[in-house]
């Protein structure tokens, strides 16, 4: 498993995708640095907690989703479509070792991305507010890591489902960038139930923890015009993200174990 992880990382670092994603992360960071430095928006600079809430929580979920798509989208389907799997699978190793090894490689590459993004955010925070880093940022970082783990579990599952790389990448991109947000809006606004079954709802704990006091579910208005804003509690969020990871990881692994190299 360690061997697969090692060479998956070598492959990432040698290929363009790692640098493309790194450049995207750096561009987002550079834009935020420039805009905050130039316009000095109060939403950012009123307190250190607000600063990290706006900077980190505003962009990190997007960075995580991009990492999931870049590293997980074709991780397994590519082994079939590009026939690289034929080089690995004929060796005396379990398919689970390949799956987990590749997943760990994608996780490490994504954590590096997150690390770079976090370092730039914290660097800016120190510039404006000194070394007074709120503890909620570290908690949010942990939740971001959990979200990354769940997203990679999910993208690997879809990658196992398809043999075409473009299909697996497209489906995961549509789901994370549009579908989940759309379903969440519809469920909250029209069906009026808590969207506890959506990964993006669970991921709200990344931003919620950076709000003081922690947001709660609240209803505005009365009767048929009442509108409820749902907020996942920390235990709910952790449970949703863990459930997504466990279920999709097990399903993805089973699919890969059963899939034939025809």
């Amino acid at each position, binding site marked *: 498993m360690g*061997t697969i992880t090692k060479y998956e990382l070598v492959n990432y670092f040698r290929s363009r995708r790692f640098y493309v994603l790194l450049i995207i992360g750096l561009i987002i960071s550079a834009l935020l640095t420039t805009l905050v430095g130039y316009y000095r928006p109060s939403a950012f600079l009123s307190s250190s907690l607000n600063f990290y809430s706006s900077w980190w929580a505003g962009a990190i979920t997007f960075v995580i989703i991009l990492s999931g798509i870049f590293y997980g989208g074709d991780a397994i389907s590519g082994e079939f479509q590009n026939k690289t799997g034929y080089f690995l699978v004929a060796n*005396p190793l379990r398919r689970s070792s390949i799956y987990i090894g590749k997943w760990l490689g994608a996780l490490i590459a994504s954590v590096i991305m997150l690390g770079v993004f976090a370092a730039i955010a914290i660097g800016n925070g120190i510039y404006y507010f000194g070394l007074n880093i709120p503890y909620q940022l570290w908690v949010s970082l942990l939740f971001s890591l959990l979200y990354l783990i769940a997203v990679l579990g999910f993208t690997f599952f879809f990658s196992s489902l398809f043999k075409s790389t473009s299909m697996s990448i497209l489906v995961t991109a549509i789901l994370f960038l549009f579908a989940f947000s759309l379903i969440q809006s519809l469920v909250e606004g029209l069906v009026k139930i808590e969207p506890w079954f959506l990964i993006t709802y669970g991921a709200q704990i990344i931003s919620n923890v950076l709000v003081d006091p922690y947001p709660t579910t609240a209803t505005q208005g009365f009767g048929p015009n009442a509108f409820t804003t749902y907020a996942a509690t920390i235990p709910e969020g952790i449970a949703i993200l863990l459930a997504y990871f466990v279920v999709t990881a097990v399903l993805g692994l089973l699919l890969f174990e059963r899939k034939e190299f025809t």
Partner: protein
Amino acid sequence: MKIEGSKCVGFLGPNGAGKTTTLKIFTDMIRASEGRALINGVDVHLNKKKALGPVGALIESPEIYPALTPREALSMVADLRGLPRAEAKKKIEETVAEVKMNEWLDKKVGKFSKGMKQRINIAAALLSDPEVIMLDEPTTGLDPRGQSEVRDIVKDLKKKNRLVFMSSHLLNEVQEICDEVAMIDHGKLIVYDSLSNVTTRFSSDGSNTVEIELSRDIDDHSVNRNIASLTSVSSAERIDARKVRIHFSGGIQNQERLLQELATMRIGMTSFRPSASALEDTYLNLIKDTL
């Protein structure tokens, strides 16, 4: 079908007959709809790690991660097969030299031609010095020199007492390097026997055919008078001035006697081997459809 010993077994059949499918079942790339694939008594599907431990396999033409160099790709295979680091380094250099790719050891695979990638794939299959080697059309994509080099590699493997199971469409290739031949059609094994037995049993006239090469010219008269009249020879024909095809009846004893008789004739014989056309004749008799 049960294969044992150290030899080369050619696996023949038309497109879609199930040659690659069989090899994929033996490497657990696909599951058998019925039956089991055992290597050294170990079920490949139930205990792949143990079953494939002594096996080197090249199935279809795998792609190697394009960003890796052959050294890295082969290091990965060495790691997966548990070769100690120092031994792996030595083996990688030896195997890459064997497939004539040593000048490309540290170049990225993404820039390689199909034939160059196939050479690295062959090196990967041979890296751990496996007891059993499964090759699925190993000369695919190789130029004539590459094909000849692969045949030499397989011949060397036979000398090292390895068991080689090789699918191929090239009958002359199988004729040249394999000791036994298995033919499959529509997923069913039609025949599995030694090359000479198969060609004798299933050729159109039930005879064996050998071709001899000579160091000096021979005319039709000599062929008819001296060779065609030998014991067990049913007919002889001159292919060109220095090549003769001989049809004879009987088994391996008659073949041995024929060789001795030809050698004593002092006609300048430099080579004596079963005719490639004999296997083709057998193949065409057994395999009636192309798909």
